[in-house]
């Protein structure tokens, strides 16, 4: 960290690049000798409480993050993990309790202050500037004169050291979500934090990328005595990557244990407060374990509910997004669209959300062609979409829950163009009850809901329209076990009710669990198809990698 008034304007990284990033701002050299093992805990929170109105986001939370450990914080959406972490980086000020950093009671006033105190965070939702390059993003917030060469070198050093390969000159907007997250991580590591908070870091990563990330983190923890808080609701990840695990439920710490003493079922139970059927337990890829009812076979029909016929689409920059994609989804089946992220999943979801027009090709619902790209055309034709990024195209955060439930068809709760507030409230209340949305009421602003509940609002709205086709894009991304179970059940029920369900997911487990038929997307086209019963994981993997034509 450059001290104010230091004569040299060069960023600190260039000075330390040979030794790799040092840990600690003032006495970094000590730490290389593992002396940190005797240090007081990196961060300790005592009795932290934060209330929003009647709801306690955190309720007397006690937690200790030690140096040299990866500490998992596990909990459902809305359990208070995010609030706790926001308190640690100074975004939220607690109502009660205190934070002790390196043995010293401290008040964290804002993220800059947190960084100075050695706490860095990698957020789940990126805060990068898409129009800028990687190194420019990393240098944002730097003071005094920029030295692009030094920053690029520094990025190179960091990426080699932690195994986070990235091209410093790439424009961030063109990168995949996984790479954009790397930019965030590098931004954080560059400040040489002693405590790093990772909020759902793998929700956008492929399994391979996650593994690399965790290897890098493990190195930072063991060599440099970093303390890492891994906020997650993925059990596998917690089990695989952490040393300790703290489980939160409804703002309280309900369990605290060594990871080596934990198992998935126990963690899930503690997190949800009841036993859950884990997907991993059902994961056996053979059809015998699954009841035939759950996997309806393809019904014979003249028309597919959804017919996508050799669609081509290009991005604004001329990149080919969809390249002759053909896809049919029939009534009552769940088609899983597998593929590595960035192969056309998003454009396809955009297309079916009326957000994109085509260069050529057609989309039909029940045989009727639809005007692609015209506002609301897909929704009107009976295509409901649970979008990948609900904040982007799924809901309006500034509006109330009730308003969000009737975005697409306000005329349902209006008479002659005038909204009937009572009717709206009444119907919203029924939906809130039916989909078990936890909120203060129909008039609560959407932003006041937790991520999982926002997702339920989206689901409720999309299902309330009695769709012909339901497109679920990464529907469980960022959700916890209980919410995943719920969402999965909803998709099954939709299919059982005759809806054609298209499940776009980069999580193979999810597809294997739900889909009756799998298609593989690669480079904007469908490269293969197989039924669930005849699934061949190896071939699937090859197809996803673009290896099988």
């Amino acid at each position, binding site marked *: 960290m450059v001290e104010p008034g230091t004569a040299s304007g060069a960023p600190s990284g260039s000075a330390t690049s040979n030794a790799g990033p040092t840990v600690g701002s003032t006495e970094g050299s000590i730490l290389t000798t593992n002396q940190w093992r005797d240090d007081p805990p990196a961060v300790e929170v005592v009795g932290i*409480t934060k*209330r929003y109105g009647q709801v306690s986001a955190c309720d007397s939370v006690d937690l200790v993050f030690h140096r040299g450990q990866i500490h998992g914080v596990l909990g459902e959406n809305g359990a208070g993990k995010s609030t706790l972490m926001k308190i640690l980086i100074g975004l939220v*000020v*607690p*109502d*009660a*309790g*205190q934070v002790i950093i390196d043995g010293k*009671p*401290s*008040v964290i*006033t804002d993220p800059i202050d947190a960084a100075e105190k050695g706490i860095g965070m990698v957020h789940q939702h990126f805060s990068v500037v898409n129009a800028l390059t990687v190194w420019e993003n990393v240098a944002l917030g730097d003071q005094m004169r920029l030295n692009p060469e030094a920053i690029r070198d520094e990025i190179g050093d960091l990426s080699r050291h932690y195994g986070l390969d990235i091209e410093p000159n790439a424009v961030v907007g063109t990168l995949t979500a996984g790479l954009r997250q790397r930019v965030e991580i590098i931004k954080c590591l560059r400040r040489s934090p002693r405590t790093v908070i990772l909020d759902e870091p793998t929700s956008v990563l492929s399994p391979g990328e996650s593994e690399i990330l965790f290897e890098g983190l493990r190195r930072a923890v063991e060599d440099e005595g970093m303390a890492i808080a891994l906020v997650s609701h993925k059990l596998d990840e917690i089990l695989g990557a952490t040393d300790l695990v703290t489980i939160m439920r409804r703002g309280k710490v309900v369990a605290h244990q060594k990871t080596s003493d934990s198992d998935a079922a126990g963690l899930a139970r503690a997190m949800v407060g009841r036993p859950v059927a884990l997907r991993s337990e059902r994961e056996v890829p053979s059809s015998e374990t699954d009841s035939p009812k759950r996997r309806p076979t393809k019904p014979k029909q003249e028309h597919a509910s959804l017919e996508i016929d050799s669609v081509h689409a290009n991005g604004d920059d001329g990149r080919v997004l969809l390249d002759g994609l053909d896809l049919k989804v029939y009534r009552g089946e769940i088609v899983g669209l597998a593929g590595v992220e960035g192969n056309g999943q998003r454009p396809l979801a955009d297309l079916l*959300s*009326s*957000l994109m027009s085509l260069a050529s090709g057609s989309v039909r619902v029940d045989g009727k062609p639809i005007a692609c790209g*015209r*506002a*609301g*055309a*897909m*929704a*009107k034709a009976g295509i409901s*979409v649970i*979008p990948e990024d609900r904040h*982007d*195209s*799924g*809901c*309006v*955060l*500034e*509006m109330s829950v009730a*308003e969000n439930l009737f*975005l*697409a068809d*306000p*005329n349902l709760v*209006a008479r002659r*163009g*005038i*909204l009937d*507030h009572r009717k709206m409230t009444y119907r919203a209340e029924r939906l809130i009850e039916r989909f078990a949305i936890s909120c203060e009421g129909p008039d609560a602003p959407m932003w006041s809901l937790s991520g999982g509940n926002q997702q339920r609002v989206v689901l409720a709205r999309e299902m309330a329209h009695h769709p012909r086709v339901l497109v679920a894009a990464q529907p469980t991304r960022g959700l916890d076990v209980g919410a995943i179970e719920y969402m999965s059940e909803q998709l099954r029920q939709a299919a059982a009710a005759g809806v054609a369900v298209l499940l776009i997911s980069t999580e193979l487990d999810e597809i294997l669990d739900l889909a009756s038929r799998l298609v593989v997307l690669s480079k904007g086209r469908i490269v293969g198809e197989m039924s669930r019963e005849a699934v061949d994981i190896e071939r699937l993997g090859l197809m996803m990698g673009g290896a099988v034509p």
Partner: protein
Amino acid sequence: MTDVLGSDPIDGAAKEVAAARGRHLVLGEIVTLYALSVLVALFLSGLLVSLTGGSARDVFSALLDGSILRPGRWGLTLGSAAPMLLVALGTIINSKAGLVNIGQEGQLLIGAAFAAFVGTRLGGETTGSVAGFAVLLTLLLAGGLGGALWAAIAGALRFWRGVPEVLSTLLMVTIAANAVGYGLKKDWLLLAPAEGRSNRNQVSEQLADAVRVKRITVFGNEFPLTVLLAIALAVVVTFALSRTVPGFRLRMLGQNAKTAQRAGVDSTRYGMAAMALSGAFAGLAGGIMLAGGDFGNYQLVPGFSVSIGWTGLLVALVAREKASAAVLVAFLFAALRTGSGFLAATGVERKITGVVQALLVLALLIPPAVLYIRQRRRALNASKERI
């Protein structure tokens, strides 16, 4: 403030009481802050007056006399407030749709020009009250149409060519002023016939008596009936934005364009409509200025818009996109305007009211930011005390 919530567990009733007390404290703080902020603005204004050799007390009482206290003055103030309010209502509409229109001054002028053209051509010799009223309605509609068309040009540039509407609306103010100036030079457009005007004056014909807005007198205060129209429109706009389906869709577009597109809100259609409507309100303001009698002599002159468009924009800004608040703010700003007429006697330049107005705008914009900072600092201090 002691930390109520962080102390030992207290029972529910006590918590309620604490929360209620907290609410009162917060409300008191808000009121105090606004009052303080306005007082500081007034103090600075007074200081400025003193520095330029005037007496703050005289200026203040002159402003008050000129805007409200003296006989007939609040009627004038109402008359000035009406077009400001209309401009503000239009601004609220485009802001809700997520569009920034800052060219109301030009839209207003074009509206006034359209109104003048229609009013003088159709109503030249009109005498009957029914016929006159019909012409009046037509000229007001023409004013709205003129403003709408002018704003729609910026809208079209925005939606079909990607030109930022902030720039285009602003720059088109200058074009509007010059276009109207041109119209006032040509007798086939707006220029009055040579007889009945002194040679060099570039003014339009006066509106015939029958096509002017009726003025009513209440307690010795005279104002045009269009004041009531403006207030009625404030109610309509509030209702339309919050309770109708198109208003709902407009807000959706403003807050999340992608979600709106998915839900069937065509951004071009709704955006154009919002832009045109916004311009229509400004144009209508121009129309009622022309036919209302508070701004000049029922005729169009160069510089006719006298910054009412800019002031209306400020009204919307201060009112935070709330039509009900805009009614009050418009009256306040209009009072500064009419009050300034009485400043001559105090020997202070009447443009000082412009400075006062700007200071007031700042004074009303600052408290929310201060509130936020204070709340945060309080929470921080509370946690510092716990250490």
